[in-house]
């Protein structure tokens, strides 16, 4: 069918002309360049080979809570890239932690109520709170994100083998971002136990702990025995990239965020008789995680008109010179394009990348949580400013999508 339809058309064309799909495969760089710099005769806007404007993100959808055996789950699709994230909570008993008694004695053990209060006051946590958060979440490995690309998501990743270095590096980036944004509150993960009034011999055992305690020192220790942490929830955050068509990090992070927003932890308490932690299976008792903010990641790539410029030119112009040239050329033909949310085809043609993670506080002020730029020298300060602006627009869009799911 297709061949017979194409036959009359091809006779009028020069013998060596190629249909666009083959041109895209044979000369990918020229193909994308032709799209981005249309001839000045027709007033076409610069458009990418995938039909998007340079700063346009792909259609994004998110769907949360569809997996049965998880505490929280989400599927996020950004164009043809799809990530599934499942959060499973398991218990880490403090008696299993080898260094627990030591670390408790050294770290200050403020009463949890005052910790709650400081956190409710907003983001003005004192250093001590932050340090205790870090000690619990980071040192006890309470967040365990792992990303898998061995799902047949793209050719080149051999299923069944060890995670590729891309998968490892993405897992690390997600963990590092979870830590640096302090997205999950340590208090949501703690399981406290309030012992009933204790006998003297038990009191003795707790005495040294108590002397360290600043806040409860004034209280009469016999009247109110201190609450102690009996266990922690450990969140296993597993991300399966089901389909990979560029920009895995944005999709993976959005899936993690949506899954954590969906996560419900059952009510858990220390059962003295069984000496273990038991949970209530009632949904009404379960709590959602209260996350800090909504960090949204946006990735960008830089497409250069002359891909060989970097190695061919023996002398690369000074940064100031380059900027002057660019300013002079303003309005004319651009020499490089900032592409938002690159797809797999564009990722293969670009080397310079940037990734910005932003959040907005209640006043709508943009806070940058992470900003990366690597792999080239064309992005300068003004470009980064533009990327931050684009990312904050993207934040609004993602917030709407995540609120709906």
């Amino acid at each position, binding site marked *: 069918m297709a061949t017979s339809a194409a036959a009359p058309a091809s006779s009028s064309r020069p013998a060596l002309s190629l249909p666009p799909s083959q041109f895209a495969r044979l000369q990918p760089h020229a193909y994308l360049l032709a799209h981005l710099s249309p001839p000045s005769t027709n007033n076409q806007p610069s458009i990418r080979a995938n039909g998007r404007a340079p700063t346009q993100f792909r259609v994004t959808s998110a769907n949360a809570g569809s997996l049965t055996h998880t505490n929280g789950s989400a599927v996020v699709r950004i164009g043809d890239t799809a990530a599934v994230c499942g959060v499973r909570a398991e218990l880490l008993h403090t008696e299993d932690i080898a260094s627990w008694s030591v670390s408790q004695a050294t770290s200050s053990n403020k009463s949890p109520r005052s910790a709650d209060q400081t956190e409710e006051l907003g983001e003005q946590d004192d*250093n001590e709170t932050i340090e205790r958060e870090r000690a619990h979440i*980071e*040192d006890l*490995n309470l*967040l365990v994100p792992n990303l898998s690309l061995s799902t047949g998501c793209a050719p080149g990743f051999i299923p069944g083998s060890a995670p590729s*270095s*891309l998968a*490892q*590096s993405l*897992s*690390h*980036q997600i*963990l*590092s*971002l*979870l*830590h*640096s944004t302090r997205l999950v509150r340590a208090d949501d993960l703690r399981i406290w136990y309030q012992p009933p009034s204790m006998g003297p011999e038990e009191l003795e055992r707790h005495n040294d702990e108590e002397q360290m305690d600043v806040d409860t020192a004034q209280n009469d220790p016999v009247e109110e025995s201190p609450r102690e942490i009996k266990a922690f929830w450990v969140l296993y955050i597993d991300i399966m990239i089901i389909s990979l068509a560029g920009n895995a990090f944005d999709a993976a992070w959005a899936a993690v965020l949506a899954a954590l927003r969906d996560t419900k932890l059952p009510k858990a308490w220390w059962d003295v008789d069984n000496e273990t932690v038991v949970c209530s299976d009632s949904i009404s008792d379960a709590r959602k995680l209260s996350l800090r903010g909504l960090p949204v990641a946006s990735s960008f790539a830089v497409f250069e008109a002359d891909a060989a410029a*970097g*190695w061919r*030119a*023996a*002398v*690369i*112009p*000074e*940064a*100031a010179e*380059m900027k002057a040239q660019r300013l002079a050329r303003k309005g004319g033909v651009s020499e490089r394009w900032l592409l938002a949310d690159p797809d797999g085809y564009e990722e293969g043609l670009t*080397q*310079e*990348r940037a990734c910005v993670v932003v959040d907005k506080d209640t006043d709508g*002020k*943009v*806070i*940058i*949580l*992470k*900003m*990366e*730029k*690597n*792999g*080239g*020298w*064309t*992005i*300068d*300060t003004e470009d*980064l*400013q533009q990327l*931050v602006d684009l990312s904050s627009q993207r934040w609004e869009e993602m917030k709407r999508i995540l609120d709906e799911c």
Partner: protein
Amino acid sequence: MSEEAKLSHTLVVSDLSAKQRMWGPRSTKNRESFFHDAAGPYASPSSLRTTSKTDTRSPSRQSNSGQRKPTTWLSFPLEFSFSTTMVGPTASLSNLSRADGSASFKCPTTGYKILGSVNAPVELPGRRDALKPEEATVEVFIKPGNTTAGVGERYAEGIIRTMLQKLILGRERGFPRRGVVITLAIVGGGAIARGDSYLTLLPSLLHTSLLALLSGAVPMSMTYSAALMAVSKSNVIVSNPTLVEAKAASSLHVLAFSSKGHLLLNESQGRFDFDTWKTVQQRAHALCRGVELPEVDGDIAMEAQGDSGTAEGFVRETVEDHLCRDYAWKINTE
């Protein structure tokens, strides 16, 4: 892996071995391509800035070469503080005799000591399918001192590889279809925690790779220098923070600038706004290159501090010192 074996076997070899290397046909020929941009491509060794130097310079001067003068920065909205330790980094070149190029680097503020080796161009028979027909494949390996490499090292390797791939002239003769293998061993300094950002370590790793690449005479389009900056909770910018300062900071930044002033790499994390970052960037630029970036309105351009105070100057002096030693026979007879 062969490059690991090389690294471990040659740890004891001292600087003196470089003297023997000098007579090798390869090293004298390729050494000419040092500083592609500094002295023009393929300048002859004597045209490098060695004429003003005498060979009486001992390696000990490296230790104070990194001193910088504190300057007041009145035009900035934020306060600045300097680390109390003003000891500059120390480095030496060609420590390993069997690697094509090697360098060791010690950062005094963070305490990290890195030993790096470069083998290039080298055949990678095991990676035949991954090799690119038109350019060299850059491979970076990071070996932590006390454990095997994990996911964090993969991430840091990726950052360095992406940056170097663009700088190394991998299409020069002899490089396509071959590999540039950079191995960085963390031989001193604290352990890196799980999930750590690697930002504190990154400038040391970048400087070590650059010195090792220069020592191995790998052609590069530009050199670079990097700086670690921290913004504390009270909005004070700390340049070259210690590990304690970095841990307490509200945001951490690593920036790398090319020898021509381009922003090559930026890795920032924490909570900050764009204006803070701009100030950090200007401060880092001054640290790396000595020249203050013009303000946004383009009127202020601070005078250069001279080579000796900057990270770029440090790299240059380290290489110059090494060249002085290597070419002592020639300089003396001139």
